[in-house]
């Protein structure tokens, strides 16, 4: 739960949008129009905030936010 909140607040901060606008069952593109360059910013911010290394194709602006959260949770749990 904590990871989910951290991911959402990190993404909201990068995009300068309210957290409520990030709908977990929608992609970042569909909910707030995230482009590929913003995805680079998001990946870097998630690495700095959560210590999770994400490859370019691992998370994209076209997959549901839920999936992104799951991927990050799995990576962090595997590391811990």
């Amino acid at each position, binding site marked *: 739960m904590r990871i989910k909140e951290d991911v959402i607040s990190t993404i909201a901060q990068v995009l300068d949008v309210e957290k409520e606008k990030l709908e977990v069952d929608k992609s970042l593109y569909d909910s707030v129009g995230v482009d590929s*360059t913003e995805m680079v910013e998001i990946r870097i911010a998630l690495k700095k905030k959560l210590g999770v290394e994400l490859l370019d194709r691992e998370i994209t602006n076209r997959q549901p936010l839920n999936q992104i959260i799951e991927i990050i949770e799995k990576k962090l749990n595997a590391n811990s």
Partner: protein
Amino acid sequence: MLEIAITGLGVVSPCGLKKETFWANLKKCQSFVDEIKRFDASGYPSRIAGQVHQLDAYSPISSRLIKRIDIFSHMALVASSEAIADANLNLELINKERVGVFMGNALGGWLFAETELRDLYIEGREGISPYMASAWFPAAPQGQITIYYGFKGYSKTVVADRASSALAIWYGAKAIRDKKVDFVLAGGMEAPITPYALLCANTYGGLSKNNLKPKEAYRPFDLYRDGFVLGEGSGVVILEDIKSAQARGKRPYAFIRGIGFSCDGFHYCRASLDTKALEFAINECLVDSKFSKEEIDYICLDAEGTVIADALEATALKNVFRENLEKISLSAPKSMFGNLLGAQTALDLIVTVLSMQNSLVLPTINFEQKDPYCNIQPTPNRAVNREIKKALIIARGRGGINVVLGVEKF
């Protein structure tokens, strides 16, 4: 032949945003130049400038986008939105594939680049914003305007030092004349008040060093001139064929009638002491615009403010117009707010169009003592009532780029 009408004006300048404020402040005939306090400029030989205030207060741009663009794009977006509103252009009713954007600037956007490159060197590749790649380069504002509004027509950015926006406006007019687009947003933007850009401008050496009296520093054609003062901002005009304006019920301000251009072909930085190339550009503009020398009411001067450049401009005008020059009003209203480099002609055009509308010639301020080598009267210090029907705007870029635009009142 299509007639290229100017139907909207948008301005972001040191003496105001929105054309009404801009004009009201210009009519005060006072200087808007101040000491630079945005960063520590105390070590710079020239540390004064015309600076834009309250950009955010007038900006319709989201903070999410502002974080990703340089301030020169931000200023261009604000000027564009003003111009579109002023032209009563309903974007829902026009074909966006037939709208072009033609912009000019000399330097690109340095504020974003300077801070991000610092972070790159300190933190490594993850310290830099990925938007650095698209924020700094000269075509960035043109791209941001087209993306923001969804314009998909033929568009270009011109980099030609202080003649950048003069050429951009002309290429925009030509795109309409060639029927490539129906509407054009044309103009320029410049944001040189940053630590590195100011350093470059100082290295060039054309800037006034009268730091103790900023408001008296930019004094073109005056005997004690010592260079120009930098300014920042953006000017954007809406261009369309007169029939398009009439069909929309929009009364145009003026027409772009023609252009003259030439290169000195002399030195990478200095202008030629021989004024023939500038004279050629003025004459070519008169021919292209179908203006006779006797018809010209007003000339908006390049007014670099350096000892040599002003003398050369005055000489070229004397040689072209001879006895007619005394009947023509000449001035450099930019002496009030600074020289916006690549964006300057866009502001000169807006000033000229507003002067036509108000039948008022704005002055060259700080003109106190005539220089025998600049034997012209540049409308000193006070505005003069005069109907302006036909006007020329002179823009000269570093290295001897000469551009002259011909403008006629509607």
